[in-house]
């Protein structure tokens, strides 16, 4: 209950008798609208014509088949990472290091493609994708082990491992895996043809990874709704004491959550390397693993919401790129939109449980 009966403010918050279903549905769209309004004002202040800027930002990138393909392409890693993070977040397991698991998935999958499967005529791709998944899982297993054995914070450990993973990638492409024919550029040799994901349709770069992500969204819904493991994770997040009462092991939840999150992030990493990039290079992700945290929450940790939110976030990336090119706006504009979106979303969350009243 709100502790103060009288406040100096003309408005006050009052706890709702029950959470508002309408606000629960409306909070994400409301946050998106607030973000657009903020963006409108910010662009005006920067001296850019906001209407033209919005056209460049949101309309032009999506007005061609190629643009739509790019939208799905960039949505794929976001969707994969966010789908893997959501079950953990529902169970109070805070994996912040999807970016690192993504990078390791790219390394293990890319390494398999370069040094293990080149001679194979069939079945190379599934093995490469599997190698990426296992790499991400192994990286996520480190914070899982430390948390369940020594109660370290998985937030810090997974986050710090991001930087280690990036340095490991940098070492490999500058050192042992550098392309001898690459004129000293820090990059690996290009992946052999049997290791590349084919585009879904001509004139676009989006590949089968997008379909895998959609299938995983359906699987994730089924996992949360129908399986006992998903139920146990939900209970642990909603009411830890009830989980202890029911004999639910939080250790099991931690392992499951970290492995799921690490696996999908690793898959996202190898899908980038075996897809649009085609080789290992010092930077593989423009921050997909971190943006996926926002995607997971904008999608309210629900698979369908995550699919939609990853498309929205992908549009922000594309818009940011085209705004840079056409309007010479700084690249941080898309970061600003992302930040504003998360900020307004958290603010709108409050209205699910509270209402604003006049004092």
């Amino acid at each position, binding site marked *: 209950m709100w502790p103060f009966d009288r406040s100096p403010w003309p408005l006050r918050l009052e706890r709702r008798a029950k959470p508002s279903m309408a606000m629960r549905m409306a909070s994400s769209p409301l946050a998106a609208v607030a973000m657009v309004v903020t963006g409108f004002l910010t662009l005006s202040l920067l001296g850019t014509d906001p209407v033209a800027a919005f056209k460049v930002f949101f309309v032009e990138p999506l007005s061609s088949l190629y643009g739509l393909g790019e939208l799905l392409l960039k949505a794929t890693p976001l969707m994969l990472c966010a789908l893997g993070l959501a079950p953990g977040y529902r169970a109070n397991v805070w994996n912040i290091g999807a970016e690192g698991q993504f990078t390791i998935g790219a390394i293990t999958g890319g390494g398999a493609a370069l040094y293990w499967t080149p001679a194979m005529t069939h079945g190379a791709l599934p093995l490469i994708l599997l190698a990426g998944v296992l790499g991400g899982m192994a990286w996520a297993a480190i914070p899982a082990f430390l948390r369940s054995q020594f109660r370290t914070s998985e937030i810090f450990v997974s986050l710090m491992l991001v930087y280690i993973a990036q340095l490991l990638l940098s070492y490999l492409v500058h050192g042992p895996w550098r392309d001898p024919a690459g004129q000293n550029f820090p990059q690996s040799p290009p992946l052999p043809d049997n290791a590349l994901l084919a585009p879904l349709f001509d004139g676009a770069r989006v590949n089968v990874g997008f379909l895998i992500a959609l299938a995983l969204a359906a699987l994730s819904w089924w996992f949360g709704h129908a399986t*006992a493991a998903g139920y146990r994770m939900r209970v642990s997040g*909603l*009411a830890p004491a009830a989980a202890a009462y029911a004999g639910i092991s939080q250790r099991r939840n931690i392992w499951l959550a970290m492995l799921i999150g690490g696996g999908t992030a690793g898959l996202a990493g190898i899908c980038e390397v075996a897809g649009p990039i085609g080789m290992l290079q010092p930077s593989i992700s423009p921050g997909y693993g971190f943006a996926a945290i926002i995607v997971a929450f904008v999608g309210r940790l629900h698979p369908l919401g995550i699919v939609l939110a990853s498309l929205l976030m992908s549009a922000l990336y594309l818009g940011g790129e085209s705004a840079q090119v056409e309007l010479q706006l700084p690249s941080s504009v898309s970061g600003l939109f992302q930040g504003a979106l998360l900020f307004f979303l958290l603010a709108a969350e409050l209205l699910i449980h509270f209402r604003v009243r006049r004092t």
Partner: protein
Amino acid sequence: MTGVAEVPRLALHGISKRYASVIANQDIDLQVGTGEIHALLGENGAGKTTLMKIVYGVTQADEGSIEWEGSTVAIRSPAQARRLGIGMVFQHFALFETLTVAENIALALDERVSPSRLAARIEEVSQRYGLPIDPQRLMHGMSVGERQRVEIVRCLLQAPRLLILDEPTSVLTPQAVQALFRTLRRLAGEGLSILYISHKLDEIRELCDVATVLRNGRVTGTAIPRQESNASLARLMVGSELAQCRLQPREPGVTQLELINLSLATADPFGTSLRHINLRVRGGEIVGIAGVSGNGQKELQAAISGESLCAARGAVRLCGQQVGRLNPAARRMLGLRFVPEERLGRGAVPEMHLADNCVLTGAAVGLVRHGLIQHRAARAFARDTIAQFAVKCDGELAPADSLSGGNLQKFIVGREIRLAPKVMLVAQPTWGVDIGASLLIRQALIDLRDTGAAVLVISEELDELFAICDRLAVLAGGRLSAVVPAADLPLETVGVWMTGAFDHVAV
């Protein structure tokens, strides 16, 4: 004092208070005279506490007026209430564990007093009213009764003319209750008016001059308690006649739950470690554990349910098996069912609906198969529980936190009973539950015992334990007394045992 007696000390006229979805108080009139002990009687949720919060300035009424010693006042804050001369002792004490008595009192006073003068005043007040406390003692390690004395002394230091006590006896031993009553009578004799909130009929008949009875936020009657019977007061409070539980003597079966020399250190710095506890509960009997919460009740529940594991496997035996190192789910598979004292957040997940809340403990009856939740079976199970235990709710898909405390407790007790327990552990079965639901829950436990289950009830309510238990023990300071037939145990003995003095008792 003549002259003043004409004007009531406190008079409430037409007080109403609404919260978002409930009417807490509706058109309430109440008058308290000088030196009068006035009972405010009602079930949980009847609106007693809200009304007292209005009088003490914690919250304000939407309608109505308050008259204090003849003049209309608006009480905007507790500080203002204290300045007027109103003191309140809350049900849950706001005391800092790591501070001394005097420091705690100094924090709560509106004026600044030097420590030495304050200590002297505390000793003076505590001696004068028979409330022995040492101002220099640290709070933690003090019993609940002692803490209550601190709160009362704190109020008395401000020389109030009206003292409000909210359910003051719920945590006291029978002897401590008598001591409190002596103090209150003495205070009333000096002209202090007392508003005494309670739902315990015997106490009100013994102590109070006048009783105002509330039901659903309205006044349903005023009475002179001494001239009423428990039945007639209960009728005013509940609105209908009360049935009685009946415990037929029965030959118990084999031992189903056994604690053998169970010792368990607590993880909570202010918790109580369990020491050398021995207990046997046989099929077909109800064993009760009396005692004030905080004496190891929480730790004992956790040790039996499996939320705390014991070092020794053999310290807890369930249906003949050593289970000291098994987790709650494994113990449940052996036939243990458990109703915890916290309903929301422990016995049930607040945001989940009732059918999903059945899955929490229903794995043993097929609500989970091959790792998949059986939604249809869970819904049917929840529906049947709701029907069998008369749970008031919007069906099996209502979220657990939409139910009232009493109805949720009926649902949780019902859920566990319908899971066919061999051993049933129930903590505080009727805490905060209205009389009607209490009777239903008690009868359900007796019926369960009659089917041959072993039932262990941990409760603070002695009336309840004496009504439903075959045998009784007392848990005090982490130690358990001998377990004796309830019929052979005088109430006074229970009171002595609740202070921990049961070492030289022959079993």
